[in-house]
């Protein structure tokens, strides 16, 4: 038996065990399952919106404006007579898409930045991390507003704003992970045998840091949807008549005092459940993926 075999076999056994426990632990975590359920529901709605929406989301019909929930309009109509249910279903597409793109931007920029800063350290590392600190110094919504305002209102600028706001969190998380990982024996061993830096980062550090990053990405989805909705609420998001949840609430808020509660309640519930979904799933993933939390339970 060579030394290599000895060191390899326990790892593969451990991996199998980990895989099994991951699913059993996830299945046992009821809250995470509820979260997953919400996410699946909203994703499904987003995918099949054109087939299941009873009306066009943008068609106005002022004769039937401001109607409460009825058989024809399950969730009522807004001040232009548009069907709120259809708008919410189509809105799911926009919210989830914005979330995915936004988190994607944060992930693709933040993770490499954090990894490079930690791996190389020194002046580059300091420079990158101080830049991240500068970004973090602004309250995220204010920063998102500033970015969205300077890019001009629109869905694309909202996505970019959401993405940029999320970068420092990803960078710091990856920085912390890389700092610990780069001291580990397997990284030092790879260095010693002359493996290229990029290979070490991609093949060894990144896969091992993936757990916490994944948890953060899931939690960020909820946050991204919220920020995007907030931007729309403030008039910096999408353009009318695009059905977006935040914009729907913004339009409907003037009607709360006159008693047309359905204009804001249903989009509000949509935002709440989708964010709740991502947060619950994120928390569940953290419980399962973080060994420290698991052992303390």
């Amino acid at each position: 038996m060579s030394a290599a075999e000895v060191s390899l076999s326990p790892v593969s056994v451990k991996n199998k065990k980990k895989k099994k426990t991951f699913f059993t632990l996830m299945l046992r975590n009821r809250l995470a399952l509820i979260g997953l359920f919400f996410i699946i529901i909203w994703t499904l709605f987003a995918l099949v919106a054109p087939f299941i929406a009873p009306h066009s989301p943008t068609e106005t019909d002022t004769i039937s404006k401001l109607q409460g929930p009825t058989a024809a309009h399950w969730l009522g109509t807004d001040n232009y007579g548009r069907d709120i249910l259809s708008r919410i279903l189509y809105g799911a597409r926009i919210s989830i898409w914005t979330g995915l793109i936004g988190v994607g931007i944060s992930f693709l920029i933040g993770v490499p930045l954090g990894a490079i800063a930690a791996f190389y350290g020194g002046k580059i590392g300091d420079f990158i991390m101080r830049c991240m600190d500068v970004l973090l110094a602004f309250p995220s919504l204010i920063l998102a507003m500033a970015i969205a305002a300077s890019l001009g209102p629109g869905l694309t600028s909202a996505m970019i704003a959401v993405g940029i706001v999320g970068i420092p969190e990803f960078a710091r998380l990856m920085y912390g992970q890389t700092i610990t990982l780069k001291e580990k024996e397997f990284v030092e061993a790879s260095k010693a045998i002359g493996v290229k830096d990029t290979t070490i980062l991609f093949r060894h550090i990144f896969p091992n840091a993936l757990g916490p990053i994944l948890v953060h990405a899931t939690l960020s989805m909820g946050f991204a949807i919220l920020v995007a909705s907030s931007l729309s609420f403030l008039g910096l998001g999408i353009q009318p008549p695009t059905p977006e949840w935040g914009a729907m609430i913004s339009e409907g808020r003037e009607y709360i005092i006159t008693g047309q509660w359905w204009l804001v309640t249903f989009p509000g519930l949509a935002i709440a459940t989708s964010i709740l979904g991502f947060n619950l799933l994120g928390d569940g993933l953290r419980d399962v993926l973080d060994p420290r939390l698991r052992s303390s339970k």
Partner: protein
Amino acid sequence: MLVKNKWKSSLALLLAGALALTGCASNANSNQSNKNKGTSMTIAYSDGGQTLDPAEAGDLTSDTLTMNAYDQLVTYGVKTVDGNQKANTEDIKPMLAKEWKASPDGKTYTFTLQDNAKFHSGNPVNAESVVYSMDHVKNSQNGSFMYKMASIKKVTAKDEKTVVVELERPNHLFLQMVAMYTFSVIDSKEMKGKGKDYLKTNTAGSGPYKVEKWDPASEAVLTANANYWQGAPKVSKVTMKFIKEPSNRVMLLNKGDVDLAIEIPPKDVDSIKQNAKLNVTSTPSNRILYFAFDQKVKPFDNVKVRQAINYAIPYDQLVHDVMYDQAKQLKSSIPSSMPGYTEEGFVYKHDLNKAKQLLKEAGLSNGFTFDFTLGSGFDDWKDDAVLIQAELQKIGVKMNIKPMARPEFLTGVDQRTLTSYISKWTSFVNDPGYHLGLLLYSKGSSNAFGYNNPQVDKLWEQAELEKDQQKREGLYKQMQVLINADAPWAYLYEYNRVIGAKKEVKGYVTYPDECIRFFPLSK
């Protein structure tokens, strides 16, 4: 350890201080409300204003603040229409000038000032102040245009109480313009040694109220000028609360926290009417709303395209569903309350087939796409835009709505960078010469859409020199017919000015400049 103790003690001090302060504040409040009971008034406004300088003011709050802190040489008379008091701008009444005389050629006006009028500082209102004020308007950024519009050539002080104003040419609007807040009379003695910027945040007037506090983010407090030359105002303290959200203004009014609220959203009018303690005054105003296109940009350079859009506007929906009938369809380039108004030549109605046909004639049977800029701040604009967008879609025209913050929007309109937009216009002088001269005369300063019809220009210039009111109105009618055919805008509606107030509030008068004069108010 020492540091920690210090921290603790300073925290304790801070807490004690805060407690004492809140205690004091609530006491002070209750004292004040007892003392001023019945004589103080709170009014909800939407914006906080930009300046206190009468020559630079250009938004409703700034205008109102200056209007109440200053007096002008003359003012408008008041008439009663349908039980509501309304300014009659053609009827000029004395204010700081007790009398005036126009020379036979109409080029020289001689004003005699009131004997007893004093500024807030105690200085008497004299001819020198009037000269100073006119100079101030001439050299200002916003007011200088009005100065030109009034065709003032020279202002001289003949003696302590006599001012002579020479005009470039006879101007039938001169007195109406001098009654505006822009031409407020400033205390020149008080201004000695103070820079021009002093007036931005301070007042030096003779008006019925003194601005005691002005914080654009929260409120302005005006206290009565007890020595006002027309007698002390009945309300001793007016607080203008700046509340952006219309629904909040409505809520405060319904709860009785404010005595009067302006800019009531049309949809809330019925709910306020149901409140037995409140009155709603909804009066037609000079404020019009139009959909403008830049006529230098394709395809809006084609009159057929502009006419097609005019046929695609859902006029009834806008008035009924957006404005809840607190507006009326605009059928000419001037508001219907202006002398010389005519609907002649206004042929447009909601007719999508006709619109399609016109597009076909313009060679655009497949429609086109254009950018529309939506300025923020007015809910009805957005509603109009969305409804118009839906109609245009039906004739194959795609309208991209681009929302923009109000300051940016105003700059865009000024610099003529916007392809199309909705905008409002209020003519403070109720005269088509003023209105059309600014908006649709090719050299008009607010003609931001490049409308240029030499025939219209010629008629306008001719009317400017015409002394006979009847003949002048005839010329303005001809202009309107030509403009209607050219369709430089799509006319949307004329606003009602909607004000909600407690039943006991009396003395409210509607003015074309929309400023509330606090002096006649009482409760």
